[in-house]
């Protein structure tokens, strides 16, 4: 199975009663390849990752991980795979070392290997100092670091990560991306779901864009940009206070606004098709929600973002 792709998804369909979460999805992550999975909320990213990691059984289709069918033999398929799905919770009163000790033993690490790998990972993720503290007293970002450490423990040949930098501060996110990039040296493969387009640009060499449960575009990042990039303008809005759902809803109601992408808790990208004073209205909306406007500027260089906005909002480009 050494020549099989790291992940091969063929005709994946998952439905719940009458509603279809994902339909006829085909994906392939080559060995050593880093693929980003992009799409708005509800596009089917998490469903796809859950199916890949055996948390969901496909209604139709097949998923092979390192050439092994996940539905038939999840144990063998998930050997050598590190997973981070959504925001996991930990048992009460457990410490990072408890979690890593258990995970390590299940993955086949000996006692000394667990100590060595755990220390290296916790140092890199900057939580070694807290290795024996209870996780329930950790912030969301710290918990995410523990979850990332358990995913990376055991030197997986494939990583499946769902929004891995959620909750991390900007510096932590940058450091983690650097960790991921560094893993290329060991021919690790990656399937990464994220809302953060700059993360995909920085880390991945291929991307699949999902919309309403289907893949609308897939290929190399540069190739796709060349094929689909549009001339829409993107305005970046940075705020002093965390962005709320109510704010996003109000922004989407502004005339001429085609869509929004939350880049972080304090920044959104707004896709504008025509210039009719939307920026003024945007500023007013920020103030009205008490978010504190830090900056507003037009993006000139985010081609992937334009591509994403184009594909996730427009008609099917195929």
């Amino acid at each position, binding site marked *: 199975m050494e020549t099989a792709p790291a992940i091969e998804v063929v005709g994946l369909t998952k439905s719940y009663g009458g509603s279809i979460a994902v339909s006829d999805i085909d994906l392939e992550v080559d060995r050593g390849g880093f693929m980003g999975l992009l799409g708005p909320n509800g596009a089917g990213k998490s469903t796809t990752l859950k199916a890949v990691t055996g948390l*969901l059984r496909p209604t139709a289709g097949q998923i092979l991980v390192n050439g092994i069918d996940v539905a038939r033999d999840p144990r063998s398929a998930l050997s050598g795979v590190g997973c981070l799905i959504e925001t996991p919770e930990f048992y009460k009163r457990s410490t990072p070392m408890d979690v890593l000790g258990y995970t390590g033993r*299940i993955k086949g690490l000996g006692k000394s290997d667990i100590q060595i790998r755990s220390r290296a990972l916790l140092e890199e993720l900057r939580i070694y100092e807290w290795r024996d503290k209870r996780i329930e007293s*950790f912030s969301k970002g710290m918990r995410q*670091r523990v979850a990332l450490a358990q995913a990376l423990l055991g030197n997986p040949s494939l990583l499946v990560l769902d929004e891995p930098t959620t909750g991390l501060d900007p510096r932590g996110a940058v450091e983690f991306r650097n960790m991921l990039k560094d893993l290329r040296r060991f021919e690790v493969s990656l399937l990464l779901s994220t809302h953060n387009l700059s993360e995909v640009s920085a880390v991945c060499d291929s991307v699949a864009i999902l919309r309403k449960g289907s893949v609308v575009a897939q290929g190399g990042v540069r190739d796709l940009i060349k094929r689909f990039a549009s001339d829409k303008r993107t305005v970046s809005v940075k705020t002093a206070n965390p962005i709320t759902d109510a704010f996003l809803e109000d922004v989407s109601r502004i005339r001429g606004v085609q869509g929004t992408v939350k880049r972080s808790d304090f920044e959104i990208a707004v896709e504008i098709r025509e210039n009719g004073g939307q920026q003024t209205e945007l500023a007013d909306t920020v103030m009205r929600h008490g978010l504190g406007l830090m900056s507003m500027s037009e993006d000139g260089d985010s081609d992937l973002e334009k591509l994403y906005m184009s594909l996730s909002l427009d008609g099917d480009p195929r």
Partner: protein
Amino acid sequence: MSRRSKAQISEVRYDSEHVRISDEEAHRGVVYRTPGSLSQLSTVYRHQMHRYAATGVYIVPLVAILVVPVLGILLHAALGMADVGVDFSSESFPAILLTFMPFGIIFLVSTFSSKTVSADFFEKTGYINLTLPMRRSVNMAGRYLAAVTMCALALVLLYALVAALTHYYYGAIPPGFPESYAVALVFACAYTAINMVFNTMFRNQGSKLYGLLFIGVPALFLLLIYLGYAQFSSLQYMFPLSDTITAVMGTGFGGVSLFTMVTMFVQVPPVSLQTVDAILLGAAWSVPVLALAMILYRRREM
């Protein structure tokens, strides 16, 4: 040194030096082989036992084990029950203890111990547990064995305490303790298997509880009774001194005891056979129910 607050614990320190350990020292790139299922079963079991110790899940039954008999002794002495005319044989007090305590202990310990299964789905611990390279049936079996072990340990404590009290008060340990313990343990296995099914089926704690109370427990008792199997004779072996209870209850209920009514239609086989059959019956119940729990757990989605 001042104590750290929670807020301090929640901060990542960027001012400290970022330690980067070399690839060789950090064992980066080393390939590890997933261990066999038996080894993973042992890991899950030990991890669960460690979790029980860390979370203090055993505290409630432990307190019950210690408090109830002590209160019973005090009450027994305070009321001077030995002088009220009822023919309290030397075994009566431990008999009463062994009538109710094993059930209570098993219900409490098993219910608390099985919660980790539903936590996988309800509290999202499964996002880590269920994505590990391990068969779900192994995961379930390890937890089941740990939960049964907790019941066994709690029962040992109870039986030891009752034996000690009996010896202290009456100068002898009544017969039937090993049989009673064996049947109680089988009951714990059967009940824990039911618990596993309900913990897998229901995400919601309330639904789980209602399911257990109104379906699981009655089903277990119905099985034991409906099979006509020695009716209460299986269960009475949880109470090795049921004759005494019968006598006491008979006195209390106008001469006709509940146990007398139930057991008068039963042809009671020899003691040893009863015990063996009760154990077989418990196993015959536990194995398929646990298998059902494993199937449900394997098919459960997140």
